[in-house]
């Protein structure tokens, strides 16, 4: 079925060093994967490579048995793989609705795009309410929701979310994970990159640990969540700076 296979990917920026150094990973259709790893491990780089925004130097990416590495970003979208970047970057001087329309840019069929947007408005009434507002006037959570909805206009089979909870208040983080749960229920394959490792793993089937751009370690999410080494490295570690902050 719609399996995504990443094989020995080597990638980096410009003439810089290799960030991903022979990474392999298999993403099975219909499951939710949470990728965790320290800052700078190459998590964002990996999703950019899959999205066709960065050409890998070596290796292959197969989707449904066909190679997709080397395709342009619009061609990857055409195959049903969407990407929601971590800076939830919208088009600031376009309205929410115009942003959603841009989500359907590659469809070239405006009546289809309008129909999809209507469906999204039913699913997320807040976006309908805000449809004529400029994106830059939205709150962080609303921007993230718009950013996810913009990807949903293409009805992707696989959606990659890069740190969707970054910089959001706890209550809003809760809402975003609620949205992700809706996508899961719809049967989408989800590749979730999360700083908030605990929340991410709690909402995933599989956990993937990426370190130094090298081979990742993949286990069912519950196992990763309870693995003492992971707790030490990624779950325990997070609370320390917070405690330090509280002590100040």
């Amino acid at each position, binding site marked *: 079925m719609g399996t995504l296979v990443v094989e020995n990917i080597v990638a980096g920026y410009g003439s810089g060093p290799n960030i991903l150094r022979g990474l392999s990973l298999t993403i099975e259709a219909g499951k939710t994967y949470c990728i965790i790893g320290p800052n700078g491990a190459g998590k964002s780089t990996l999703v950019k490579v899959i999205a066709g*925004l960065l050409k890998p130097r070596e290796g292959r990416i197969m989707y449904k048995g066909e190679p997709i590495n080397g395709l342009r970003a619009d061609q990857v979208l055409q195959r049903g793989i969407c990407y929601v970047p971590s800076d939830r970057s919208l088009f600031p001087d376009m309205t929410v609705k*115009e942003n959603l329309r841009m989500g359907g840019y590659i469809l*070239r069929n405006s009546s289809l795009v309008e129909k999809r947007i209507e469906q999204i408005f039913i699913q997320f009434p807040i976006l309908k309410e805000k449809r004529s507002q400029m994106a830059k006037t939205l709150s962080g959570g609303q921007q993230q929701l718009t950013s996810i909805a913009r990807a949903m206009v293409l009805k992707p089979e696989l959606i990659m979310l890069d740190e969707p909870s970054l910089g959001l208040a706890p209550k809003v983080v809760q809402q975003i994970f609620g949205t992700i749960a809706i996508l899961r229920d719809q049967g989408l394959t989800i590749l979730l990159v999360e700083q908030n490792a605990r929340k991410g793993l709690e909402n995933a089937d599989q956990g993937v640990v990426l370190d130094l751009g090298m081979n990742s370690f993949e286990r069912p999410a519950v196992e990763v969540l309870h693995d003492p080494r992971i707790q030490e490295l990624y779950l325990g570690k997070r609370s320390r700076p917070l405690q330090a902050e509280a002590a100040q």
Partner: protein
Amino acid sequence: MIQIIQVLILGLALGGVYALMSSGMTLIFGVMRIVNLAHAAFIIMAAYISFWLFKVWRVDPIVSMAVTMPVMFLVGVLYYRVLFASRADNPRFTDITVLVTFASALVIEGVLSYLFTGIYRSTSPVYATRPFLIGPFFVPQSQVYATLISIALIVSLWLFLQYTRVGNAIRATMQNRNSAQVVGVNVALVSMLSFGIGLAMAGAAGSLLSFIFTFFPSKHVAWIGMLMSLVVLGGMGSLMGAMLSSFLLAVIASYVSFYWGPTWAPITFYLALFLILLFRPQGLLGKKMDG
């Protein structure tokens, strides 16, 4: 009182042409972050094309826009393709563009001097010297035609950006290049097209000013300063801003010229540039830019 209104009319009659001259430059900056210091040189290049068509075949300069616009569009596409396309990912891209376009302006000036010498030129269709008389007021026909055509072109450009698929892709690229790529916009193609469209506007401006001003190859030096101030005052990348600042400064310059003499008019633009950089560097309708 009549004089005050007369001066206002003359200022407004030039505003549209200034707006057309700066529209392409602001578009090119907005989409690609290219500071096109050769913009005025390209405008003069187009003015020479109109001049040549007029001299050899008596082609009306307004009609010759049908030549200058597509020719300058192609020049823009090629120019972008050859000099900028491969550098678009360079972190110091904007700095590079300043140097490259400045050098280009000098090259264009040199070639035009070689081809057409330094003699002052202009085209002289019949309407170039006739005024419209409205009650106690007069306004040169040439300026009325030039400004009306300019406004029509800018409005068309605006409608194109607002309501077509390619136009939306251009606006999206202006607002957030990364996001545009994420939704599948081919930003390299959009950049090339936008440069072409920007120079097509410069082409139209060249044809129109061929009959309202005299020009010579090094005239671009005076105009680029004026264009910079219009673009910066409007907010770099803002089409409506460039339009607003063009009319505003054209009218102010018109009064300055009337009360203090025409030699002082250019000061208006430099003073405006100076003040805007001091007090509102993002311009009238521009957005604050980080990085």
